[in-house]
Structures are given as structure tokens and as C-alpha cells.
């Protein structure tokens, strides 16, 4: 599959993850979110930006429990609860937020 | 014209480099690349053996493979030249034949 943003078409795999992370842009993130039926709010961006920083530092998308632990450390426990994250990303924070952030599918089965 | 010997496997895992050094005749060229580049570094257990070979053969090591492994190109043994991909092609072009130790 593919996404189009700012007049550019960007390739994604069959599950919707970007093939090349370097092709990500904020506009594209909005398009991916639309496909995921998510309306991006500042709270969504906080998680997406956090994931991009994590990837930049470690070159992987974190497993969900690693994500929540890292978010607790940086943004506080209330923003790391499963309830909070699932409200933002109903089909799985790791999977959906990673997809919007342009990251590959998270490493780890949970 | 003489041979170009290419070695790509780690000398700490296989003995390709050691065998190559036994059979390379004086004046021939040797290029270490991929996992073999560790053999070009100073301070390893093989440094004396390789430095000795560099006196009679023309030793080279592939720069991009050093960089990928975080190995400092300024710390290769004396007598070993660091080359890039174009240099690799030049070496192959100048050789009578290529002996790939793999």
C-alpha cells in the first residue's frame, strides 16, 4: 500500500508501516492517522514524538511494556497507563503509534 | 603482474588470512575486507604476523568496512593502505588474477 501527503506518494508495507522511515513527515503522519481513523491531538503527538525520539536513540520500536516504562520516566505515570494509551490509540498504542510515527513494527510480540 | 588476494573472513574465526599469508608471493597485493578488516589493526594478537607480511606484500584494507565496525583507520598497522571501493576495483584491475580466500 501507499500514502500520499504534500503531493508525494510514499510506499508502505501490507500492514501500513512505512518502508523507508526517512520518508516520514508530519503531513504524512496525519495521513497515516487518517487511515487509522485517529484524529491527532497534542496528546497523540506527544506519544508519536516520544516514539520517534526513542527510535532515533535506539534504532528500534520499543515493546509496549518498555514504551510505558520509558513514558513514565519522561512524561509521568498518568500518561503511561494502558488506559490512557489505549484511549489515544484504540488498536494498540505500540502498533498504531509506531505506524503513525513512521517506525517499523515494534520488536517483541506484545 | 601478480595476484590480488582478497580475504573477507575474520582471522579469529577462520584461518583464511593465515593461509593467504603463507601462499602470497612477495610483491603480490592483499586486500582485507568485511570481517577480515580486524586483521589490519594495531595491537591485536595477529599484529606481528600481519605487519611482517606487509613488508613483502602490498597490504590493503577496505575503509568502509573499518568504519562500519568502529575501527579507526588511523590505527591500522604501518605498511597497510586504506582503500575505498574504487580502490578495490583498481587493485582487481591491476592484478593478473584474483585469488578470493573465502
Amino acid at each position, binding site marked *: 500500500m501507499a500514502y500520499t501527503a504534500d503531493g508525494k506518494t510514499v510506499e508502505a508495507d501490507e500492514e501500513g508501516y512505512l518502508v523507508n522511515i526517512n520518508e516520514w513527515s508530519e503531513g504524512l503522519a496525519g495521513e497515516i492517522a487518517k487511515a487509522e481513523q485517529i484524529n491527532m491531538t497534542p496528546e497523540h503527538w506527544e506519544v508519536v514524538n516520544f516514539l520517534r525520539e526513542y527510535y532515533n*536513540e*535506539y534504532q528500534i520500536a*520499543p515493546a509496549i511494556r518498555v514504551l510505558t516504562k520509558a513514558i513514565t520516566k519522561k512524561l509521568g505515570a498518568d500518561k503511561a497507563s494502558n488506559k490512557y494509551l489505549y484511549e489515544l490509540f484504540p488498536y494498540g498504542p505500540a502498533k498504531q503509534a509506531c505506524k503513525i510515527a513512521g517506525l517499523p513494527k515494534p*520488536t517483541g510480540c506484545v | 603482474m601478480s595476484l590480488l588476494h582478497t580475504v573477507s573472513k575474520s582471522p579469529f574465526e577462520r584461518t583464511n588470512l593465515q593461509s593467504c599469508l603463507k601462499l602470497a608471493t612477495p610483491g603480490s597485493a592483499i586486500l582485507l575486507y*568485511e570481517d577480515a578488516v580486524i586483521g589490519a589493526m594495531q595491537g591485536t594478537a595477529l599484529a606481528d604476523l600481519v605487519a611482517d607480511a606487509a613488508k613483502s606484500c602490498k597490504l590493503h584494507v577496505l575503509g568502509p568496512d573499518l*568504519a*562500519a565496525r*568502529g575501527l579507526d583507520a588511523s590505527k591500522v598497522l604501518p605498511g597497510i593502505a586504506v582503500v*575505498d571501493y574504487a580502490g578495490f576495483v583498481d587493485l582487481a584491475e591491476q592484478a593478473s588474477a584474483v585469488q578470493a580466500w573465502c
Partner: protein
Amino acid sequence: MEEDMEAGVVKKFMYVNRKQPYGTVYALEVLEMVLISAAFDQDVHLVFTDDGVLQLKKGMDTAAIGMKNFSKTYRALEGYDIEKLYVDQESLDERGLSEDDLLVDVQVVSRAEMAKLMDDMDVILTA
């Protein structure tokens, strides 16, 4: 399901890395296996010996070989609660390396100490 795993037996796992990072795919495959297995809350030990010590070398730049530099991912292991990393001094010495050349905190042990540690494991996987 999580309770089941917590109630289950915790085994001592050891992953032994013996190869350089980029010449073969083993190092990356072991790293991915370790990250995935972290979900099972076992007592994980990571050993870097022989050429495996080169997986932890600082300052890798893979741009020119067209491969992903996955060495930064070793620094994520702490977040996965994998904190028992061992390197043997002899392997460092043979390659002209020292502990300062490594990009993560490890326990540097002698080969004899590593041998003892290995004897104490329930499961050992080597690549």
C-alpha cells in the same frame, strides 16, 4: 497470562555472541531474539566473546556499507531489564581492544570466570 508467566519457573538463559556484527546476520538475529524473549521474564545473561566483543564497539558508521547500524540497540537492553552483560578480557586483548572501546556497561571477566558462569546456566544459545 502475565500472571501465569510470573508464577512459572524462571530459568537461567545465556545467549553467547561469538561473531562480528556485519559479516553475517547472526549478531542482529540474536539481538532480536533477546529483545523478544525479554517479554518472558527469564534470568537472561548475554555473553560477548571471541569476535562477538566487536558487536559492542563504539563509533560504528555503517553508511558506506549500506547496512543499518544496530549497535545503538544494545543500549536499549537496560530498558528491557536485560542488564547482565559479560565480556571476557582475553577476547578484548586478542583484538587490541579495552573496556573503554565498548558502548554499553558490561562486566569484564576472565575466561575462567566465564566458563564457571556458563556451567551454571539452564539454557545456552550460541551464535
